[in-house]
């Protein structure tokens, strides 16, 4: 089975992001970039399926600027077999990315597509679902467990207050939640091997996909800073404040 894994280049999760002074977006100058943590989990799951002998090939795909090659190399170092970069310097929305991924799915004829449930930069949580709609494949989102049984795949999903297990007919789309697995570190021998693995670069035009966006970002603002706390004198006062001021009890 061929698995396609989508990876996104985002600001490293350890970086404190700053909003640009003009409110047009987040300041990315000299900021450390990394693979989206949910995408790391997606790569790890694909590699584990390959180690179990279920997957035969893992193709990592990314949509973004030329520098996104770094994240694809990381995916290759973690165990992907080859990589595809769809190069675009535009800021693409979820739908545009989903359309591009659909084009790659059609081209590669992969049986399973694994994506992170969302990227930590825009937190949209849309691409996997949109890709499901575009391809017509079954989808299992927020996966915390994935089991392949013949031509179907059982996905345990994290839902409010519990777990739900769904059975999907292959081909299918899975989006990963945080507890699906713990991604490995790229070992030095694998980093060196990654250098020799193939990385193909495509463009949206070559795939015949229009990336024109129907959504425009008007403004980006930093969250309000937390105001200082207060110290209450007694439990009674705390209860009174929770009831009348905070109105939470």
């Amino acid at each position, binding site marked *: 089975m061929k698995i396609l894994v989508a990876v996104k280049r985002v600001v490293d999760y350890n970086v404190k992001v700053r909003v640009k002074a003009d409110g047009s977006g987040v300041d990315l100058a000299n900021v450390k970039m990394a693979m989206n943590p949910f995408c790391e989990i997606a790569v790890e799951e694909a590699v584990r399926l390959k180690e179990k002998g279920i997957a035969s090939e893992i193709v990592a795909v990314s949509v973004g600027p030329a520098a996104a090659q770094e994240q694809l190399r990381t995916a290759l170092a973690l165990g992907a077999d080859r990589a595809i970069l769809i190069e675009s310097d535009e800021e693409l929305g979820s739908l545009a990315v989903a359309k591009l991924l659909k084009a790659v799915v059609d081209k590669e004829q992969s049986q399973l597509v694994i994506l992170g449930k969302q990227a930590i930069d825009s937190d949209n949580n849309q691409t996997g679902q949109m890709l499901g709609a575009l391809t017509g494949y079954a989808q299992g989102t927020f996966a915390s467990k994935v089991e392949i049984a013949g031509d179907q795949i059982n996905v345990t999903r994290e839902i409010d207050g519990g777990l739900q297990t769904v059975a999907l007919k292959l081909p299918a789309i899975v989006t990963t939640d945080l507890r699906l697995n713990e991604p490995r570190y790229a070992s030095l021998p694998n*980093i060196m091997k990654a250098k020799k693995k193939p990385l193909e670069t495509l463009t949206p035009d070559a795939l015949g996909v229009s990336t024109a966006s129907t959504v425009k970002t008007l403004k980006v603002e930093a969250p309000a800073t937390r105001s200082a706390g207060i110290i209450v004198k007694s439990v009674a006062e705390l209860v009174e404040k929770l009831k009348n001021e905070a109105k939470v009890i």
Partner: protein
Amino acid sequence: MDFQLTEEQQMLQDTVARLVRDSYGFEQREQFYRSEAGFSRAFWQQLGELGLTGVPFAEAHGGFGGSGVDSLLIMTELGRGLCLEPYLQSQIHAGGLLQQLGGAEQRKRLLPVVIAGELQLAVALEEPQSHYHLHHVQTRAVRVEGGWELCGRKAVVIGGHSAGLLLVSARTHGEARDEQGISLFLVDARASGLSRRVYPTIDGPKACELYLDRVLVGDGDLLGEPGQALPALRYQQGRAIAAQCAEAIGSMEEACRLTLDYLKTRQQFGTPIGKFQALQHRMVDMRTELELATPMAILAACVADEADSEERSRRLAAAKFIIVHAGRFIAEQAIQLHGGIGMTWEYSLAHHAKRLVMLGHQLGDDDHHLEAYAQLLKTA
């Protein structure tokens, strides 16, 4: 000059940074410190599994064939995490000596297990009276049938308590301060006549005093030609100094980050103390020292693996001197800007400060390297 890391170096840095971040929280470090080994054997094993213990070794010996810059990336991250593992002493310093002086049989027997992280090494070169001079050696090795007999004492052997094999310098002929006559021996940690007094150093890692009382080693335990080890000892100490500079940079960066964070958080007179210009100036001075020190660490990393020359020695001495000064300045200022909390055991800054001060006293202090630099200028 191109300071861009290659994709592989970037990934190497990411791997080590993530590994240290995940496994070396301050509380975890405290547990490692209090354990019998004084560091985390699990972390050491993980370094081995990821291939990181093989970075400083040549590909011909089964290593990664990493450059000085690759070692710099690893050491910087280990420094940032205040890691207690003897990576510098075992993989870079002792490993380098074994690689340079070892015969084909010795390399074949030992390098694979060292590269895999299964055998930890330590270097025992300094003595109580030697004061950074590698040729001040009073420990004696006397020829006996089938090998050598070692008598003497070695001081502050970092990682010596947990090493399986110790690289011990001893005089096979000549007087106590002669440059000729120094040999290097492999001594098994369980050898009869060898005793160790183990203690924690002030900045965390454990060290020991090594007492050699008629310790017998075989002919196969002599590294290189008898009496000819000094040039290799000096060369490999240069590589260790470059790695130490990188470690100091990681620690300095973290000390600066913690201090800036503290200035932005701590309130006094109703405002964060970072608003006060006098403190801003001091913070800027710390960053300036760091910015001066960083290129020196890069320079040291770039020349560390070059062929031995006076120019290389001069650059390494200069790097160490600048970094000792910067490290001490940053450590002291960071404590001053923090106030009392900067000295508490429960806060990592205090440990960075101690590490930075101690790095300035290991493998030569600033006075030693300034003098070395001045001497080399005279002959240039």
